[in-house]
């Protein structure tokens, strides 16, 4: 009994863990930003305004609707509380089909304090008068900081972009402690809005695999482990099936016995056993068949002729008018 609960618990726990680690808005990063834009990337109106690029590091589509962009996280703690008010200086990313970011994709928002220009234009603009020098992305619940990138102050006067050296690659532990791993963020050599920050030649997946696992032993071991895991999961499921079926059979048998008390008593006393296994049934069946089959010494001598009735018209049966295929 206990073992079945163990199996059920394992399966449920597995799915629960899967759901917890599901890819979501937590995979979004403020990948690149430009605070002083003189003659660089232009918005849909041809203006050169500051911009920030969001990168979806996940391998599935992430909906960023309802998340907030801001350069001032004041009120984060209060907004997260029950009934808390979201500060008006936060820009809420509006509902739009384009806000579904496909896997490993980029999306640009213009930091131009012109929200009426469209869904990609925020209600704040980082300039020399700004009190802070960072851009933050906050979860739709208003209490969770998804990413915060602090840019160097001189970026306000230099036409240069700043962001992750390796696309969205962040040290989770350091970020949780409010710090950054050195070299994680830097001034970028090239402007790469809507594309990867990694502009130097990158090792292909195959070459990387060849370098890191020259003889393929690592991959073979991982793969065999995954194959076994998948089939062991099915094994556990089938064990549960077996258990449930056995229980159901026992239950129905008990109900049957309760319905016929005399029979049940006899069975209890061991005088009669209801359960007859397959081979025994087959043996009894064969014996009966042989017995009755050998009793044909006298035939009934009655011949029955069945007249087949035609429920169709031969004229309607096109098949009958066709030439038959030759038979061997």
């Amino acid at each position: 009994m206990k073992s079945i609960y163990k199996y059920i618990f394992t399966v449920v726990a597995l799915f629960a863990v899967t759901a917890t680690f599901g890819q979501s808005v937590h995979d979004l990063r403020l990948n690149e930003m430009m605070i002083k834009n003189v003659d660089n990337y232009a918005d849909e109106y041809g203006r050169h305004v500051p911009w920030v690029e969001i990168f979806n590091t996940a391998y599935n589509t992430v909906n960023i609707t309802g998340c907030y962009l801001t350069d001032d996280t004041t009120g984060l703690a209060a907004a997260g509380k029950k009934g808390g008010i979201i500060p008006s200086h936060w820009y809420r990313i509006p509902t739009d089909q384009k806000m579904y970011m496909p896997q490993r994709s980029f999306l640009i928002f213009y930091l131009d304090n012109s929200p009426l220009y469209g869904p990609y234009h925020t209600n704040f603009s980082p300039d020399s008068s700004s009190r802070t020098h960072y851009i933050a992305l906050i979860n739709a619940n208003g209490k969770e900081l998804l990413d915060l990138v602090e840019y160097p102050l001189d970026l306000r006067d230099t036409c240069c972009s700043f962001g992750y050296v390796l696309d969205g690659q962040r040290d989770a532990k350091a970020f949780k402690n409010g710090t950054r791993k050195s070299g994680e963020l830097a001034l970028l050599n090239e402007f790469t809005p809507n594309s990867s920050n990694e502009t130097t030649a990158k090792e292909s997946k195959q070459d990387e695999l060849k370098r890191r696992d020259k003889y393929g032993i690592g991959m073979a071991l991982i793969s065999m482990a995954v194959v076994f895991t998948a089939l062991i999961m099915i094994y556990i499921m089938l064990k549960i099936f077996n258990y449930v079926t056995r229980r159901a059979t026992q239950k129905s048998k008990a109900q049957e016995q309760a319905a016929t008390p005399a029979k049940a008593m006899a069975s209890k006393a061991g005088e009669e056993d209801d359960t007859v296994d397959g081979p025994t049934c087959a043996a009894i069946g064969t014996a009966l068949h042989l017995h009755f089959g050998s009793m044909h010494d006298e035939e009934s001598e009655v011949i029955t002729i069945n007249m087949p009735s035609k429920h169709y018209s031969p004229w309607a049966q096109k098949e009958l008018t066709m030439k038959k295929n030759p038979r061997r």
Partner: protein
Amino acid sequence: MFEFFKDGLLQFLSYSGFGNCTWGHIIMICIGLVFIALGIIKEYEPLLLVPIGFGIIIGNIPFTDGLQVGVYENGAVLNYLYFGVVKGFYPPLIFLGIGAMTDFSALISNPKLILIGAAAQFGIFAAYITALLLGFSPMEAGAIGIIGGADGPTAIFISSKLAPSMMGAIAVSAYSYMALVPVIQPPIMRALTTPQERLIRMRPPRAVSHREKVLFPMMCILLTAFLVPTGLPLLGMLFFGNLLKESGVTKRLANTASGPLVDIVTILIGLTVGCSTQATNFLRPASVLIFVLGAFSFVIATASGVLFVKFFNLFLKGDNKINPLIGNAGVSAVPDAARVSLVEGQKYDRTNFLLMHAMGPNVAGVIGSAVAAGILLSFLY
């Protein structure tokens, strides 16, 4: 007049097969004829070898390029039919049919047999490692390794994605070895088992309820596809086909999937894969290596299945013990591998019927090879 006649005839001859024939074409046509002969005379997997063999002949009729007749020429009829192989939609359709034909009862009634199906996949990764050592790239090695899964559609599916240039050789190799299962496996089984082990009688499988059969494909797709989503085309279709069969209310769909549909796709896949083995692409030293590695992976897969059962028996008692002669069935050549178990078992005890027991690891092998294919794709594609 004579000159004109002569020029016309020579021009016609230059367009004909005789004018373009090479030794490569002749060798390939002979290979095609051997396949057909094996299918018809020996009855080794005739449903596969006859279409593939004829496809090899069609694919190796010499012609001048640009006539839009070859399988690799855009606009050719054969090229359109080959599209299903290149884009990988024939193999999932075959898996739909396999699912609609497969009875998982043996597996459901004795769940531990599923682990044999997992162990037999070792052949795939042993061949992968060996192919890497022989200088193949990781993608090519992965495509070659899948031959050890003994699953034609999976081999085609994976090679079309990882190594399209090798697909012909891999597919022909996979189907050839599947056809030769009754020849390859018995010596390995005999070498790795003792006479006492071959006499082990297994407990008869219990009756499986309709509810269990219906729940099985649904639970399996959830468990396996969550773990290896890249195997979804194969696993999804396999379990969908099985649900059609077991639900009992979609008999027409199940009959179509397991009958006409799978027959049509088998014809198309067999013929076009055969056609893809044009001499220029096929007759290369790499093809010989693929055949050698394919045989090696098959041997390792069979051996690992048998050895795993022997190892597993160390932990089992009484009538729970498993006859190691069903270990070979962990490769997914359904139902040939299971039939080999039965035949071998009966050589030592005529009253020991291992077929039903061997079907458990055999269908587990189908699931295992599809999962392994998914892993290869997620690592290499």
